[in-house]
């Protein structure tokens, strides 16, 4: 996939809820082929940002472009090329894993084999089981399978490691690499720092709705003034412990 424009680009993106500014003048540019980790403490605004990218939420200021298009005006074009694993989602009780994946495939008008996708995420033994009775880890795997339908050019994964056992975590990591090797851009949020370090080319750190640092792991270590062998947790704490400057409202 080659794009002249960034796959995701936000300029002064802002989302205000009453007095609370959940996302504050956020400038992001995710290039084609990136594996971009979106880091931040709980409540930093990660899911809100993803909600804005996917048109769950509408911005109160600034602009968003995904594949150069406005998510509000071109949801069909954008979502045809995007796979999404949302955070805090619910599945359809009474429907099997196969039905969940088939539904996405039918809507995207692709003929992916649901069984193959479910096998890929480790749900080969639960293809026809009721998704309403899945454990959290199985739900997460199913949502990932749904995200992979149609070989999307962009994968948006919101806290993809949630509820997964170590095998599941490793599988997600492998899939991210496989998808990226295929040419997909991957944008994911997480607070599982070790995994982010293992998976991402670039990392953006969000704190109180603002991007406080961005770069490779080494660049973030430098920004935080940490040693070369400092673990990601120390870097993260250092970056998100400082007060926000430049007068930004914060949550």
């Amino acid at each position, binding site marked *: 996939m080659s794009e002249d424009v960034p796959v995701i680009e936000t300029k002064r993106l802002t989302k205000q809820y009453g007095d609370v500014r959940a996302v504050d003048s956020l400038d992001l540019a995710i290039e084609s082929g990136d594996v971009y980790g979106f880091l931040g403490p709980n409540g930093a605004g990660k899911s809100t940002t993803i909600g804005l990218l996917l048109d769950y939420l509408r911005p109160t200021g600034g602009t968003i472009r995904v594949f150069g298009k406005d998510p509000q005006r071109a949801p069909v074009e954008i979502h045809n090329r995007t796979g999404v694993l949302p955070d805090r989602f619910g599945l359809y009780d009474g429907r099997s894993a196969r039905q969940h994946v088939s*539904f996405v495939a039918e809507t995207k008008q692709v003929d992916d084999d649901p069984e193959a996708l479910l096998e890929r995420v480790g749900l080969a033994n639960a293809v026809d089981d009721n998704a309403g009775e899945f454990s959290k880890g199985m739900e997460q795997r199913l949502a990932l399978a749904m995200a992979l339908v149609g070989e999307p050019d962009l994968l948006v994964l919101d806290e993809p490691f949630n509820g997964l056992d170590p095998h599941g975590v490793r599988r997600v990591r492998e899939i991210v690499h496989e998808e990226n090797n295929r040419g997909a851009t991957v944008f994911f949020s997480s607070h599982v720092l070790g995994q982010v370090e293992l998976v991402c080319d670039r990392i953006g750190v969000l704190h109180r709705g603002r991007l406080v640092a961005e770069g490779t792991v080494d660049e973030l270590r430098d920004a935080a003034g940490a040693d070369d062998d400092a673990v990601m947790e120390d870097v993260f704490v250092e970056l998100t412990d400082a007060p926000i400057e430049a007068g930004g409202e914060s949550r």
Partner: protein
Amino acid sequence: MQWSPLARRECRTVLTSKGAWILTALIVLWGFRPTYTGWNAIGQNITIGYIQLGVNLLLPIGALLLTYQSLIGERTTGSIKFLIALPLKRTQILLGKSVGRFAGIGAIVGVAVLLISIIGVVEHGTFAVLPFVGVVLATALLLAALVSLGVLLSTAVDSTVSAAASVLGYIFVTLFWSTVVSKVYTAITGVPVDPYDAPASGPLFFALRLTPDGAYNVLTNWLLGVGNSAEQFHTVYTKLAPGQFINAFVVEAAFESGTAPWYLHPALSIVILLTWIAVPMALSRRVFNNGDVL
């Protein structure tokens, strides 16, 4: 059409719910009420009259209960995040939801109509085809209006409890609609409304047929040829029968022949029902297209 898988899924959701098939049974049981009055009114077409009786009250309750969760349910569970992430415009999501629910409930009501027809033919012999087709189409219009309304409730409220309360509120208001209209009419004009001897007022009679159920009854009574009224067909017949004195609003009983205003023509009920389809749809679209869905 990229929204057709969504419509199919919505249709399946209805068809696989227990409540749906209970509705079929209830419509048949509630509708099949043979009476001498009904027979005297329309003879063998009483079978078509059973459809009107079965649909009255039960279809509004059933259709709203089978639609009011369609969107707010997904918002509550969080499954809407998958829905919005699909390559569909928000308007297409509403369309898929509405068309799917309409088809599902339509199939259920269709089975009920089929059962009533079979029972009717066995009990009373054959009936006229044209009024039957007309009443079935009128029932489809009523259902479309109710689905449109149910989807609007589901779009506009912020919890399933509020949606359920709105459904109850709607049922309650339409159930007592003639009382509400009479009280309001009296309050505005100072003219008391006696349903045994209603004033020949165009606005009063027009207001009585403004609910989807009222418009449906006016339309089906017209097709059955009993009279111009939002009441049930046998009530209209009784009201107009010589020597009978009952509390019912029937145009022919209140107005001298040929003096009823044009806007009380029964065919205009089609416009009322179409308005009940279009306005809630437009409002749903407006609410759902603007702002956050979470």
